[in-house]
């Protein structure tokens, strides 16, 4: 990250912009060290990082909206129709 000048300690305002790169393992080795050094000394940024982690966890618990009974029936009918139809068209493989 070029916004970081070398050697200088990170400010909290910079740390909050680096949390995703940190969590994605996209920081250089030296930036990662500086980031972690800041966290060790800064309970506020540690709390912030924890809040981001909790945000991610909470987002991961969102469940899909259920299908309506009508939609279930419609997809069952579609499925039968598709299965009854001729040879498949081209789809990408995996």
């Amino acid at each position: 990250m070029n916004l970081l000048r070398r050697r200088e300690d990170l400010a909290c305002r910079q740390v909050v912009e680096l949390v995703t790169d940190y969590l994605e393992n996209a920081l250089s080795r030296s930036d990662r060290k500086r980031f972690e050094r800041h966290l060790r000394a800064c309970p506020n940024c540690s709390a912030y990082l924890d809040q981001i982690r909790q945000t991610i966890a909470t987002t991961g618990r969102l469940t899909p909206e259920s299908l309506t009974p009508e939609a279930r029936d419609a997809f069952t009918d579609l499925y039968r129709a598709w299965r009854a139809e001729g040879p498949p068209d081209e789809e990408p493989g995996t």
Partner: protein
Amino acid sequence: MESDDELLTRLRDGDEQAFVILVGRYQSTLLRVARSFVPSTAVAEEVVQDTWMGVVRGIDRFEGRSSFKTWLFRIMVNRARTSGVRENRHLTLDPTEPAVSPDRFDANGAWAEPIAPWESDVDDRLVAESWGPALRAAVDALPGRQRDVVVLRDVEGLDAADVCEVLDISEGNQRVLLHRGRSRLRTVLEDELRTRGRS
């Protein structure tokens, strides 16, 4: 809950129940992401229906080299792009949009006020006290590609490389979009906690 792979095995045997379960599992997310590629809900619904047809007819060619959901979302995006509708490719990448409001910091860039740690069970509570809808609304309110990335990464659990492939964006853009999206959601949850008076 049956895994996607178990359902796919049943689907290969022509089990329509397995198909309906898979549709239920992914329909709302497919519609959300499709909607950001096409200009109307009606077109998004067509694209998604077409996607499921592609799944049913292409199931024998799915070899499991990627996860089912990556394959599924890739089919959807392909369909959306060939639906004859111009894609809104505008990437809202504003490099100046801060993760946290600047007025939360002092002149030296340090937090002006202490950050109150959330209780460790906050995510349980958010769900238990049905805060899901508030978070869902916040996810839906994210701008186009931010929402797509957050939905695919954090709701559906695709990894970064798969999201880049599905959405055809670079790793760097993926990270910026994810960063903006997650930062906004954190702010929403923080505000919710504060208004409800329990932080």
